């Protein structure tokens, strides 16, 4: 359970995103809002990478600021909009990076680590990519691999910062379907920020709208997409 209490995320002393009280449980939660509304900063704050905030953000009753970095890595995994690896690295090895928080000093994979990686490979159907060089993949394939890497990290929370930003419609659909599949099969809190609203009703359990510095939860009874478009005045 990810809990926010009197949270006020700031940048250089200026308030960016505030919420009195909010709880996120398992399921797929979308984070929408216009450019610069603070979606990325919100995600970085939960990740423990943006320390300028007031109030309390806690994961399983523990304030995220007080959790050791390596322990936090066993609780939260992340996918950014673009992934670039340095060097000529096989997809199998990129997936393996997700196990780093669990490995010894020499980064040796044990049987259990290999088992978890194999399971994710099966779930996302990455078998044919394993021996390929990550940097030679298409943007869509890369993003699927990075989602796989986050799953390999085996965390109760996965944050995705505009995972579909550089993808075409077909690949975006693939990524979103994969997320839905994960949510159906495993109890995880999956929070992703996005600018494309077409998938909201299809795959999301909840939608949070960041606007004018506040976080507003959209009602599931009416269509999410319609509500967002109405909110921004795109449709009446």
């Amino acid at each position: 359970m990810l809990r926010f209490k009197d949270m006020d995320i700031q940048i250089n002393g200026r308030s960016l995103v505030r919420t009195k009280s909010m709880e996120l449980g398992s399921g797929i939660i979308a984070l929408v809002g216009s450019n610069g509304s603070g979606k990325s900063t919100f995600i970085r704050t939960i990740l423990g990478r943006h320390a300028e905030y007031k109030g309390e953000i806690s994961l399983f009753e523990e304030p995220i600021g007080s959790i050791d970095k390596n322990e936090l890595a066993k609780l939260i995994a992340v996918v950014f909009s673009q992934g670039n690896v340095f060097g000529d690295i096989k997809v199998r090895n990129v997936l393996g990076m997700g196990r780093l928080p669990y490995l010894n000093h020499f980064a040796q994979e044990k049987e259990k680590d290999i088992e978890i990686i194999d399971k994710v490979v099966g779930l996302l159907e990455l078998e044919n990519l394993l021996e390929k060089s990550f940097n030679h993949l298409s943007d869509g394939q890369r993003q699927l691999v990075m989602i796989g890497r986050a799953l390999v990290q085996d965390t109760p929370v996965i944050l995705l910062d505009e995972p579909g930003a550089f993808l075409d419609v077909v690949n975006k659909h693939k990524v979103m379907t994969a997320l839905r599949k994960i949510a159906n099969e495993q109890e995880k809190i999956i929070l992703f920020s996005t600018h494309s609203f077409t998938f909201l009703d299809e795959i999301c359990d909840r939608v949070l709208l960041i606007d004018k510095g506040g976080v507003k939860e959209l009602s599931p009874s009416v269509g999410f997409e319609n509500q967002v478009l109405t909110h921004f005045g795109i449709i009446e």
Partner: protein
Amino acid sequence: MAKADKIFGILLMLAITLLVFVNLIIGEAEIPNSAIFAILGGDASDNPVWPYIVENRLHRSITAVLAGGGLAVSGLILQVFFRNPLAGPGVLGVTSGASLGVGVVILGGISLSAQYGAWLHIVAGLIGALSVLALLMFLSQFIRSAITLLVIGLMLVFLTSAIIDVLYLWANETNTRSFVVWGLGSYEGLSQLDLLSLASFVIIPFAGALFLVKPLNALLLGPDYAASVGTKLKQTRLLIICITGIIAASITVYCGPISFIGIAVPQLVRRIIRTPNHAILLPIVFLAGAFLGISADLIVRLTANLLPLNTVTALIGAPVIIWTIIKLNKSYAQV
């Protein structure tokens, strides 16, 4: 560890041992092989000068192994940190920083063999190298483009060499000459104490680098992803400054600013073994650097010491780097 990687490591070790022996046997002074083995075994030989010569050759070989290996490891770590296959202690100005430190001391008239000379050289070299590294790491937080950072590193190289040129104004002829000779690079002339000091300045930080295995693996994904798998970025950065700085500075102090090994070796190794795990890469890169270091010295000795070490490393290293730049667009992160 994959079988192929193991075989590659063992081959490198055998090759290094072989080259050390070759270096002991050949040289300007003709010493019978039997006498060389007798001296290594601790026995007396027919000619009282020979043990001295053999000791010199042995020191020179060990220095070559340490210097080559150390520079290559330092290059590997810097390349991963700056996410740039063209980074290395030489290109980034770390060696130049050490040179400036050493320059101040030598041109000021204190030689390596003077009383406390070695310590003064090391401290000065360290201050120079670590300042450059700290400055680069500070700037790297604001500069996203890897090429820009390299250009800044190159400018630091020019800047330090310009400052050294200014220092020449006050130096006398003898000191200037000894600094110029030092700048050509050489594994020659280390006393037993020097060698011991060089060995500890290379091997202790190298052992420390084994704590960097996981952070370096994680950094292949970039700093944001690295942090998300538990890498403490600030601590890692500090450790990288200390380890690469100390290794590069101490080698520069004792052997002069040796170019190209630090940048070329990690490139070559990455082409041969494909593991991204630094638990394997670090030792293999050390061995490969040691191999190149001692091979380069063998060439120097075959020309009766007429070719400077840096000429030989440039002849080997520059083509590798040109090849890397051509390959760059295909396989590496966008620069």
